[in-house]
């Protein structure tokens, strides 16, 4: 992103080039003419709830389709590994010599997850599967409501600190020889609570959500969660992403308002875009909220390079 910004931006569009001017209506009329859609959000919530339900049902009814939890599971007999857990395990194992004990299933599961999320967009795990994301996404709406009513102030931090947390948690794991992060990991905690029944540790989730509602928007997902960071490394190169077409954009920036990681949509600001076509970067969770809200269809799901082949 930093490198891209060094490119000179394309000069801002003139008034008659804006999509509404081509239709001969005002910008407000143009926006009002487009219906509110929730297509991708509904699909995404459906997928998220379905898979978490499948986790629960597999154990509760012993159907064995998706066994385990989000920290490690088996889908129709194929092992799947949480990548950050796997990384910690590999790092600790290299120090203690445990590495050689790890099973082949472990490495297969780790590799399949890496390949799968490489193809499907890296952090798409967050918005399409993570149960904490589902809670936090709705908590964010509450937070936005309070900010709008001026009940609370917004607190933001530098988004780069998540890399410090990522390195820090890995170091902690190696130094203490313990999967430190898994003890406070809301993804695993909620997943286990869904599957094996709730416990006192859910208080931690309540604390986190309350903090996100009253103090800092999406604190955990934006600034801390190393699982998301691990997925974002894969997502950086992923072909599946959000495509931005400058020629269709009216610069209303409603997409940035709904976006869960607005810094990834920096190019929608008038006069910022450096290319005609931009792709969302590593932190984008491919949630599709911007695709739903965009009035001119300037934002869409796309597979990078696919249009060149066909």
């Amino acid at each position, binding site marked *: 992103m930093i490198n891209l910004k060094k490119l000179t931006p394309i000069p801002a569009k003139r008034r008659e080039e804006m999509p509404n001017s081509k239709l001969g209506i005002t910008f407000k009329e143009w926006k009002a003419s487009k219906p509110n859609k929730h297509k991708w959000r509904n699909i995404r919530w459906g997928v998220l709830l379905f898979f978490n339900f499948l986790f629960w049902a*597999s*154990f509760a009814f012993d159907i*064995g389709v998706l*066994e*385990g*939890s989000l*920290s*490690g*599971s*088996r889908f129709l007999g194929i*092992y799947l*590994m*949480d990548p950050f*857990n796997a990384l*910690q*395990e590999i790092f*600790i194992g290299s120090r*203690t010599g*445990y590495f050689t*004990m*790890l*099973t082949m*299933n*472990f490495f297969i*599961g780790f590799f399949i997850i890496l390949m799968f999320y490489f193809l499907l967009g890296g952090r798409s795990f967050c918005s399409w599967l993570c149960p904490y994301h589902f809670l936090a996404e709705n908590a964010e709406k509450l937070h936005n409501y309070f900010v709008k009513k001026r009940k609370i102030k917004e607190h933001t*931090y*530098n988004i*780069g*600190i998540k890399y*410090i*947390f990522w390195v*820090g*948690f890995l*170091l*902690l*794991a190696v*130094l*203490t*020889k*313990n*999967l*430190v992060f*898994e*003890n*406070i990991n809301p993804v*695993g905690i909620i997943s*286990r609570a869904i*599957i*094996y029944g709730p*416990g*006192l*540790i859910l208080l931690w989730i309540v604390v986190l959500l309350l903090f996100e509602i009253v103090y800092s928007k999406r604190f955990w997902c934006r*600034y801390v969660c190393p699982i998301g960071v691990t997925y974002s490394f894969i997502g950086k190169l992923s072909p599946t992403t959000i495509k931005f077409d400058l020629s269709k954009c009216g610069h209303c920036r409603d997409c940035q308002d709904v976006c869960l990681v607005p810094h990834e949509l920096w190019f929608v600001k008038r006069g910022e875009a450096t290319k005609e076509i931009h792709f969302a970067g590593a932190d984008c969770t491919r949630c599709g909220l911007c695709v739903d809200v965009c009035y001119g269809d300037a934002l869409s799901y796309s597979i990078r390079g696919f249009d060149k082949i066909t």
Partner: protein
Amino acid sequence: MKKSDSEIDRRQFLKNGAFAVAAIGAVGVGVNYLKKLNEENALTLLRPPGAIHEDEFIYACIKCGLCVQICPIEAVKLAGISDGLSYGTPYIDPLAQACDFSCDAMQCVETCPTAALDFIPFKKAGEDALTEYQKANPNPGPDYNPFIVQSQSMKATTKMGIAVIDHKTCLARNGKGFKGSPREDGFKGVYRSPNPKREERKASPVNDHIFDRELCDLCVTECPIGETAIIMEEKIRGNGESIWRPMVLDGCTGCGVCVMVCPSTPNSIIIEKLEMV
């Protein structure tokens, strides 16, 4: 002087970054503190079969719960937050539901993706037993079932802990017999009787078994391992009086079936982990 955007960005990163480093440090100190507290606590948790040493187990286990899901009698459970750093790791409470080897093939061990429950010794034991059996019986009869041969030796390889009998409350030691069902009403634990007919290999509730013994020896007769693990031993006292008592041998796997079926109140048997003995 107006600061540029990147300068503000850099300052914010340093400021927030310092906070992040401090937070990581705080978590580290907390974990170290909990680890010390945990050292004794973790030893009270009886791990599933094949568990590696507790020091390694605590990081090898990723808390996915696959072992919980595969267990046919729901003996394996996940520890709660009261167990500190062991939160989310599997354990067996033999008093509520012991491991009776109902799955026959160490499925919790085989399913573990990180080898926190290590299958290699079991696999080796099974293969060794098979070659030995084939050497001894070059022409096995129609009853020959290699699976049972393997499964027997895999069971014997298990070393979850060892049974320790409290002789003060033991019924046999005090010369008492036992009649009726072993556990209190409403007890839900199940186990597979060690001498079943071929068709009755499924686990059945403990309280469905009605015993009538002149001298209580349930821990010995119901042991899934048999006479290499626990026997009734006669002891002659100084005054010439002979008493019988259950005696735990080296073959004990610590599965805890004896704990579950022990009819005395309070319970006379506990399983101690090997790290503790």
